[in-house]
Structures are given as structure tokens and as C-alpha cells.
């Protein structure tokens, strides 16, 4: 056996061998994972988007949201949202105790926080449908991505804002 090997501890040699084996395995597996989830280059935008999917899941279709100062709880329902189509939403508004809110004044705004622009249209709450339900017309999203939609509610002088996150 060569004397060179006698000088270096066998533990060190075994450790180096195992390390290189691990390196090979991680390279193969890592590549596979990366290409399975993200075919194109991972930009900052895209990694943020993944975070926002998680945020958006909380506000996905048909789910409710509490207003900023906990005064209202709002549920929304949208017809199937297609990029670039005018469509309607129906929202249901309750107070913190679950009592329906009737005949409130509600305005709508929103936009894409990452792009710094607002909604492409000026949606309005056009009708009180009874039972705490309101018809929102003129909704449109003209590009995919992370959108927020906010409802500013004034019910007999009690005011608050509810914001939904959507990932389209």
C-alpha cells in the first residue's frame, strides 16, 4: 500500500468519498426538482409569485375575508374569471356578529401591487339584492398575475375596508 495513504487519516478519505457521492446525488435530484417546478429562469418576480399563491389561496374564489378593523366579514362569488372579459361579482356582507348588513354604500378599487397600476375598469356596486347580497358589475382583469380587490363599506356611518387577493 502506498505510504501516501498512510499519512492521511482514513476517516478523512472516507468523508471525502461520501461527500462526493452526496454531491452527485444532489446534483441529479436537484436538477430534476428545478425543472419540474420552474421550466424557465427563476426570477425574483416568479419566486415572489409563489409566495403570493400561498397568500392568494386564502382569498380564493368563494372564500371570505374580514375587514381591516374587524367590523365586517365579506364573502365573494365570481362567475368564472377569464382574463380580459367583463364579468360580475356577488358579495355578501355581515358584521362581526354575523348579522347581515343591508343597503350599505360600497365602492370598489384594486390593482396589481407588483406593477403599480389599478383596475382597468371602474366597477360599481349596482344593486342591493337583499339578504346582505350586493351585485358588483364591471369587473375585468386584463392580465394574469397577483391582483387585489378592495371593497370600501359604509354602513350607517360605520366604515371599513376589505381586501381580497387573487392570483390569476
Amino acid at each position, binding site marked *: *500500500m502506498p505510504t501516501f495513504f498512510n499519512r492521511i487519516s482514513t476517516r478523512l478519505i472516507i468523508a471525502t468519498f461520501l461527500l462526493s*457521492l452526496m454531491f452527485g*446525488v444532489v446534483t441529479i435530484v436537484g436538477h430534476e426538482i428545478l425543472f419540474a417546478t420552474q421550466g424557465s429562469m427563476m426570477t425574483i418576480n416568479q419566486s415572489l409569485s409563489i409566495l403570493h399563491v400561498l397568500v392568494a389561496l386564502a382569498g380564493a374564489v368563494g372564500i371570505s375575508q374580514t375587514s381591516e378593523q374587524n367590523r365586517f366579514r365579506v364573502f365573494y362569488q365570481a362567475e368564472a374569471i377569464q*382574463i*380580459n372579459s*367583463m364579468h360580475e361579482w356577488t358579495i355578501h356582507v355581515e358584521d362581526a356578529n354575523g348579522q347581515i348588513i343591508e343597503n350599505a354604500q360600497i365602492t370598489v378599487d384594486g390593482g396589481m401591487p407588483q406593477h403599480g397600476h389599478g383596475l382597468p375598469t371602474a366597477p360599481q356596486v349596482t344593486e342591493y339584492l337583499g339578504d346582505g347580497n350586493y351585485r358588483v358589475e364591471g369587473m375585468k382583469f*386584463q392580465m394574469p398575475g397577483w391582483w387585489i380587490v378592495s371593497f370600501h363599506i359604509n354602513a350607517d356611518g360605520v366604515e371599513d375596508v376589505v381586501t381580497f387577493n387573487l392570483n390569476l
Partner: protein
Amino acid sequence: MKRYLSKLISVSPLLLVAVMVLASACTPPPHDVWSDSDTDLLRGLWIGSLEPLAPNPSNQYADDPRAAALGKALFFDTRFSSTGDVACATCHLPERMFQDGTALGHGVGITNRRTMTVVGAAYSPWLFWDGRKDSLWSQALGPWESPVEHGGNRTQYAHIIAEHYRTEYESVFGPLPDLTSLPAEAGPVEEVQAAAAWAEMSQADQDAVTEIYVNMGKAVEAYERLLLPGASRFDAYVEAVLQGEPAAETLFTPDEVAGLRLFIGEANCIRCHNGPLLTDNDFHNTGVPAAADLSDDMGRTQGAQQVVNDEFNCLSQWSDAAPDDCDELAYMLLEGEALMRAFKPPSLRNVDGRGPFMHAGQFESLEEVLEHYNRAPSAPAGHSELEPLNLTPLQLEQLLAFLKTLTSPINLEAVWLSSGSE
């Protein structure tokens, strides 16, 4: 134990090499493997995702084939002008994707904007760079009476219809009124004599003439709704990708694939150039430089006010729509910084060879366009939506290579693409 160890140690360099060879043998997948989310984006751009045209509530004749045949004849007829030699087809040349290849439009005078392609325009809720018209039929009524485009007036045109198109017109729209007592030229136009003659006409006479004018527009819309793009090499590629065909790899070069990846990813093009026509038909300020020698152009800020006040919009008496059918007009944005110097992105289908580009033809070539997006200069007014992309020259070339794959013929029989005999 020591014997095994010594064997292991002497063999380990070989094992190391074997592991590394294995690692490099598992090279990245072929250059065009697309993730699920990217495949969804590709499907959105694919021509197979283009929904059939919905009926236009404001034009009851929009899908009438006889109206389309009449509309085609009117589109190519140069008599509808003050000089007798300007037709819609003069600037909207069928052989150039229905545009003219010049920075500004040249009718009886010169316009202050780039002629837009008509192919696929039927899908847009707004027409013109600033969206100042909300239907194809009302759009057609603009140039016909514009002093720099056709330069004529609606009473002149009504007489031409009565003299040369009576049968075709009446078979679609019903009997023409008697026009014999009406002046030869009259209309709410800049030309002083015609304007004076119009002011002297009774309301009933004005309405009779305007109704004919409106129907001319509606016939032209029926024709223009037929002008749709066919499938391009890009669409063949996406179709192969969607079906998981390995042949996809031969349809696009690696550079074209790289360009497409940039388009839907890092270069942010898909933000505005989305959907099967590669435009969202909405208004965006992209910091396009002001054209020298032209007055300030505020884009959508002005266009929004114009369409709301337009004589022929969806809510007007000439529209066939019920008020409930005019959502785009009812819920449009009317003010705000976002509208300042914002313009509508044209469809990128057939963009190659369709220069010059932007609303007054500011960029000669696609290379200049891409350079502009890469640099993202600030806007002359309002706020540009662009951010500098920092793409390398190679990446810009790849984007250009991709854009060239969007070329396709118009999906229509040749007889519809030229003037027929009367």
C-alpha cells in the same frame, strides 16, 4: 477490516469519477420542456384558444353575409371621398395586413397617427390607438368624414348609395328614403359649405341621411369581422407542446424557444401582449417618445372623453344595443394618471414586416422597439409602465426570432381580400 478499507480507498477515485459521469449524463432536459404554469401561458397565447366572435349587440347586421358583401364593396370604393381616389383600402391595404407601412396615414391629407391593422380588430372593445370609438361600425364613420382622410360628408355618400348600391343596400336595410330634395354635399364636417348646408337641413332630413351613413358603417363592420389571422408556426409549436409531441423540438429553433421563454417571463411582454391575439386591447403608457412635428398626444385621456361623447357609441340612438349591453362603456375608466399617454397595444400576430411601429410610427424596426423596452426611458407625460430589462444582445435577438414566428396569412378566401366587380 483494513484490507477492505484499503480496497475501498484505492477504488474511490474511480467511484468518484463514475458518480460525476452519472451526474453529467443526467443533463438538463431538452431545451423546450415547459413547466405546467408556463404551458398554461402558452395555451392562452395559442390561436386554438381564440373564442368565436360574439355577436355585437350594437349592430344587428354584424353577422349578415349580405351586409358583409356590401361592406366589402364600400371598403374598396374610392368614390367615398372628396377627391374620388381615397377608399378605406387606400390605407388599409389587404396585401399589407390591412395597413399602409408608413408612419402616418395619407388620405386627402396626412393624419397624426399610424394606420392600424384591421385583422382581428373585431375582438377589441375599443378602436383606434386611444379607443375613441367603441365599435367597428362607429369607427368606420370617423375617417369617412375626417378632413385629412376621406374628406367627404354623409349626404354626398347617401347619394352615392342611392345611385350605385340601391339594390344591395335595400336588400339588407330596407327601402331608401327619397333624397332628391337634399343638397349634394352636407354634413357635420369641417368643410365650411357642407357644414352650412347641414345646418340648414331639417332634423328629419338629417336623421334620414345619418341613418344611411350608420348603415354603411354597419355593413363595413360585417366585412371587417371576417378578417381574422390564420395559424402561424408559433401556433403549430404550441399545439405540439400541448399534445406532448416530441416533434415540437423540430418546429422551433433553440433561439426561438429562448425568445418565447423571455416573452412569457423575464421580458414581461405577456403583461400587455396576452391572449390569442397577443394584445389585451387595453391602454398602456410605455414611454413611447413624442413624435417630432406633432402636437402633444395624450392617448386614452382624450380618447376616453371622446368615446363617452361620441354620436355613435353603444348608448346612442343609432346603436341596436339595449342600455344593459353596454358594459364596457358603462364601467370604463374616465380619469386618472394611468390614462395619460396610454395607447392600445396592437396584436403582435404578423408584427414582422409591419413597421414602422407605435402610434405615430416612431420606431422603424422591431430591433428599435426591443431596444426601447430594454432601456425603458421615462415617458414624455404620465408614467411609463416599463422597467429596464437588462437583456443581453443575444436575448434581444432571441426575442426577435420568436416574434418572427407569429407570421400567418389571413384566414379568409382570396375573393374577400380584393375589390370585386360591382
